[in-house]
């Protein structure tokens, strides 16, 4: 969701109410709406039609890069750049290099996955607009941006009120 888009937000007090509202909003044909909650809600991905996160692919690829980097680093420094005979062991002594390779695999995979989260969620954001400060504590919301197909303030307001929203408000930008 790009920054600066206005829209309409409905506030709910119950987890099942917001889940129900998300399902209803989806069945009404909206695609760009989002649900805001203080904690991850079980079943919300299906309700909002969110695809499975692609971060694991990043983890796998960068983990593999870490593994190959570790292998290349240990091999090139110990067997190519300046080979030193340590206790008669082979220059390329793979079993002894495994701890290094393993640690670099984990390090690359973990840090890149966090980077991927930052990219996916657009973090860090400086002073993002807040619909309601209680949305990180005990309230839930559905936000429908004004550029979504079939956006109609009056119709949406009625729908959310029927679904049990305690408050429906226009949001200048989110």
């Amino acid at each position, binding site marked *: 969701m790009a920054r600066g888009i206005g829209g309409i937000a409905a506030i709910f007090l119950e987890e099942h109410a917001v889940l129900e509202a998300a399902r209803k909003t989806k069945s009404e044909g909206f695609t760009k709406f989002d649900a805001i909650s203080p904690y991850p809600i079980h079943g919300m991905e299906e309700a909002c039609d969110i695809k499975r996160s692609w971060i694991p692919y990043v*983890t796998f690829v960068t983990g593999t890069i870490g593994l190959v980097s570790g292998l290349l680093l240990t091999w090139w420094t110990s067997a190519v750049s300046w080979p030193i005979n340590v206790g008669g062991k082979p220059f390329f002594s793979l079993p002894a290099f495994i701890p290094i390779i393993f640690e670099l695999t984990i390090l690359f995979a973990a840090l890149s996955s966090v980077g991927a989260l930052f990219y996916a*969620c657009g973090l860090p954001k400086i002073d993002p607009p807040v619909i309601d400060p209680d949305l990180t504590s005990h309230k839930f919301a559905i936000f429908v941006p004004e550029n979504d197909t079939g956006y109609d303030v009056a119709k949406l307001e009625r729908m959310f009120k029927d679904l049990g929203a305690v408050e429906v408000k226009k949001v200048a930008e989110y």
Partner: protein
Amino acid sequence: MIKRNQLIIGNKSFKDITDDICAPVERFPSKGWVGLFLGAKTLLIFYIFVLGMVLANGMGLLGVNHPVAWGTMIITFVFWIGIGHAGTLISAILFLFRQKWRTSVARTAEAMTVFAVMTAGLFPLLHTGRPWLDFWLFPYPNQRGPLWVNFRSPLLWDVFAVSTYATVSMVFWYIGLVPDFATIKDRAKNKVRRMVYGALSLGWKGTARNWSHYEMLYLLLAGLSAPLVLSVHTIVSFDFSVAGLPGWHTTIFPPYFVAGAIFSGFAMVITLMTLVRIGFPQFKDYITIDHMEVMNKIIMTTGMMVGYAYASEFFVAWYSGNPYERYAFLNRAGVPGTSGDYAWSYWIMVTCNVIIPQLFWFKWARRNIPTMFIVSIFVNIGMWFERFVITVTSLHNDFLPSNWGNYAWSFWDGAVLFGSFGMFLTLFLLYLRLVPAISIAEIKPVLDVGKDKKGGH
């Protein structure tokens, strides 16, 4: 069907949870906290002085000598690294096993991990003797050849393992904190707190799309941390077991060290949690006696694993037929005919680690706060002595009697050991005041566990 106890007691609403957990961050500190903090901070200042003296005068200030070249710093390094492991076990491995009780203690246990690794990390860096050259530990292109580090050395594996562990633990901890920082920001009444926690929260909004990625990342980091934590103490044990010294050169070391690390770490979690429950009484609804009991069961189990490892080492020493190996172990226990100089430390270790935790067979002991506090202190002492036994008794009498000697324990050894608690406790006390000590976003989904109305699982 066996009924499950409620994870969180007191019929909390979501708002109550937020209020309870944010309270220590938002109000002025209590007298108790200030008292503890002044004590810990004074100890930290003393520690800085002690490390300054060690830095200025060199390692000779400590009791390390020939043949006992590894002393307090290495012992205390392994001690603190081990403490850290319980935090990762709780936050990552118990998460993968879907143990929902972990939610209440995961945040604080992870904080303990981060601070314990920070405390531990100083020791090997200072133990190099010339810590201002410690950047030589990393393989970077240099003008000395380039001369590279020796990747065949367990000490270098340790550099990679501990630095990776420290980095990933901190990142994992911070990612868990991001939604909670956003909560504090949104509640903040004053401008400075809003700015500081707003910056820390990175602008987290909590949309369903964000949560979807977030949960996936959390699972991935847990999956990466689980093998990582096992690898770290395995590699720490390689520091000893790859050497050819009797008493060190055994294949049992990696699992033995990992079990010992989890054992000591859970003891430290119990020590800290009993104190947190006294300092912040509202947390008693989240960290219940049930939570403490589960952890005490883990302490007893891992304590017996460690006891099994002690016994197994003796058996293998006898079965190997190696006279040096046999001597090393008989000497540890102080059997007549050996020097037995450090038998007292061996028996302190056995008493604290194997005998005292047996108290947890009794349910009243597992559920009694003063009892578990005392046992956890004994386990902490015992696990420090375990590393003392492994390091010092193995080194002091090795192959040639003409090469034997004793560790020259000095005032500075004790000062380094006790001072390190100053560093750890100062960080931990600051954490309790600056960061929500229980994960707000993670605890809300487990609110219904064990409640009759909604069933739970």
